[in-house]
């Protein structure tokens, strides 16, 4: 019985929109993702572009909308934590963060705004990754659904790039970081539902110091030859990370790879956690390492140096199965196997593509005072790379990359509220604004990442598709690929969907101007 329950829970979690992209993936495939600078496109933890001389930039944007609305401080802080893990999972050291914030105009919205900024500030500052820019807009449409989008950028030597895959049977699955607790269970489903049904218990708590330790340890590991893959534990935590490494490995090698996970070896902070709770917990600051078996001791040694708790919790197999070993009362070591293909059952949801109904509320840019009092709470100069930060006007940042004698140009744009009237025009505006800045600064555009925040698919899917098509068209015309991104649907409360809210970030590179 319990075995069937676990199976159902696994399938349900993996079919959630946030993990499966069931409603959006057939449209996302329309985006051009290849280009001469692209090392890694969408499908990994972050996209990676080549900046020459043996170095590359990993970057991605993520949303943490629902959690930030429910628990502003922790929701926003864990949003920063999550996107940073996406970057150092690839072996890259994070060198910058952007925050794109959208809030309502109600009194409650103002309070949430304060908590969100405080959360981002406490977390990012402690880790020592500079917040180099972002933007703030207010609109009544966000009264019941604030938007917190965080982009992050990391620098990596090309030879050190890691992917979220398991490739070789017999290798270790190593769990490192925080203990698993009951916090954040059901987070992935929460992000795939309307906000009126979401619960506070699904929001995780944040510990930036632990994240800092993970960051340094993982960057140290990336310099070695000890690991063949790394994956952060985000949505649907242990379940998603352990199954995803097998899935990617299967795609890459063509081998019938699987994994065996010993849930009884997972360190827990709560008592009597059920297998389902362990699998789905979204406790923060945890990573999964696919370690080469012969370097097991070396890997554990690196984590020990950083005072991190690490355990071998599983192994890579060649039986095509996702196998769990767990204890039940009075019975030890029950084994449950599902085929990996069954977990990733390629669910699809089809929605009618209705035209977007304009809301017409005012889209207001944060005042100069609000903007200044916000960026002053962020450490934007740590790392000593920030040539142009939020202290000077303009939706772009310049980071010094002395390793390659170049400067990284990052430009970003909202749709300035234009998508409400015409979704395609909104996205085109954002794209052209980003590109104009990159060109004005004499940089070569390398790629874009985007966060597509929409309401309930029943009324927003038409706008979503128009946005994708407009982005795809501009990408093709300019030969600039999309290398990573995020879709956030269900930003809705009862029957109110937010306006279509695309956020675009473009990355370019130029020779250092003396």
């Amino acid at each position: 019985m319990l075995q069937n329950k676990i199976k159902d829970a696994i399938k349900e979690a993996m079919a959630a929109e946030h993990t499966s992209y069931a409603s959006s993936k057939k449209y996302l495939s329309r985006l051009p993702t290849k280009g001469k600078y692209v090392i890694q496109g969408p499908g990994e933890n972050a996209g990676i572009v080549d900046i020459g001389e043996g170095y590359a930039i990993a970057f991605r944007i993520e949303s943490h909308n629902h959690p930030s609305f429910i628990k502003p401080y922790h929701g926003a802080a864990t949003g920063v934590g999550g996107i940073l893990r996406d970057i150092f999972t690839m072996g890259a050291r994070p060198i910058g963060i952007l925050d794109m914030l959208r809030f309502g105009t109600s009194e409650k919205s103002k309070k949430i705004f304060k908590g969100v900024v405080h959360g981002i500030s406490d977390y990012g500052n402690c880790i020592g990754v500079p917040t180099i820019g972002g933007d703030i807009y207010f609109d009544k449409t966000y009264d019941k659904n604030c938007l917190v989008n965080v982009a992050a950028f990391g620098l990596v030597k090309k030879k050190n790039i890691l992917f979220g895959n398991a490739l070789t049977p017999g290798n270790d699955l190593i769990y490192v970081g925080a203990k698993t607790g009951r916090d954040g269970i059901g987070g992935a489903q929460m992000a795939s539902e309307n906000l009126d049904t979401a619960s506070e218990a699904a929001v995780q708590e944040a510990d930036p110091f632990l994240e800092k330790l993970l960051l340094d340890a993982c960057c140290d590991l990336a310099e070695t030859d000890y690991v063949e893959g790394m994956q952060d534990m985000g949505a649907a935590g242990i379940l998603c990370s352990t199954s995803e490494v097998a899935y990617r490995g299967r795609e890459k090698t063509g081998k019938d790879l699987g994994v065996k996970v010993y849930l009884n070896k997972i360190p827990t902070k709560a008592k009597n956690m059920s297998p389902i709770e362990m699998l789905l917990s979204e406790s923060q600051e945890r990573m999964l390492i696919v370690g080469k078996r012969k370097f097991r001791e070396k890997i554990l040694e690196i984590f020990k140096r950083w005072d991190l708790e690490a355990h071998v919790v599983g192994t890579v197999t060649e039986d095509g199965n996702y196998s769990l070993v767990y204890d039940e009362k009075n019975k030890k070591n029950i084994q449950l196997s599902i085929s990996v293909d069954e977990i990733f059952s390629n669910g699809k949801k089809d929605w009618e593509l209705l035209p977007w109904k304009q809301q017409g509320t005012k889209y207001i840019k944060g005042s100069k005072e609000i903007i200044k009092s916000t960026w002053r709470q962020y450490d934007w100069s740590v790392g000593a790379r920030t040539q142009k930060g939020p202290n000077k006007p303009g939706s772009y940042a310049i980071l010094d990359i002395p390793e390659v004698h170049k400067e990284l140009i990052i430009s970003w744009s909202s749709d300035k509220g234009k998508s409400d009237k015409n979704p395609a025009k909104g996205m085109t505006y954002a794209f052209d604004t980003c590109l104009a800045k990159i060109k004005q600064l004499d940089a070569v555009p390398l790629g874009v990442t985007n966060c597509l925040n929409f309401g309930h698919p029943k009324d927003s899917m038409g706008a979503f598709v128009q946005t994708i098509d407009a982005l795809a068209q501009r990408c093709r015309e300019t030969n600039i690929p999309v290398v990573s991104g995020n879709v956030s649907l269900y930003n809705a409360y009862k029957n109110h969907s937010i306006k279509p809210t695309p956020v675009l970030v473009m990355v370019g590179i130029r020779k250092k101007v003396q």
Partner: protein
Amino acid sequence: MQKRSLRVGILRFPGSNCDWDAYNFFKKFGHKSEFIWYKDTQLLSWDVIVLPGGFAFGDRVYKKATEEYSIDPGVLALQSPALKIIFAAAEKKIPILGICNGFQILVKAGLLPGKLEQNTSKQFFCDITTCEVMGASFFGDKSMMHKKFHLPVAHGYGRYVVSKKQYQELQKNSQIFLRYIGLNPNGSVENIAGVSNKEKNIFGLMPHPERSEDGKYFMKAIEKYVTK
């Protein structure tokens, strides 16, 4: 005359986050940077020791058996084995520089006078400040006296506090070497941004010269002091 390359020890805690900035800063000027891990205990022949910025151990001090915590920068660092190195270096009059969290630690360790408390705004603050060098200058470099420099600050606990009596003593001994001009980012007493010990071989400041173009003047002062 060829410049002498200094051997610089940079104390690294797990939560230091300006460790690489300090490392690269000295390297850029041709010096040899070495990390001192917080568990190390042996004083090597460093020409200067730097305590960089960051959050040494996250700075959350947890109340026993509860999840509640208070923030107290520097206090956890005091229990580190490597503090032995710092005290030994202080005894031997080896120059020591504490930046931001490093300053907080030196103050907590009693190697520098005063206290660093939460900013008056109760918020983290990051922007570029203007600071003037005064007192007995930075590592005694007369060429920096009464010059103004643009230095970023980034901290939540940088409000320098001393009693009136202590303040007068610091003044008398010319220990206050740096003050904010115009904008005081944290509410420090008398706009104090940095102080030294009485002997003028230990310096602590909240602003970050290693992040600034003006950092080169601070570097020159250290070079002159060590090689004189």
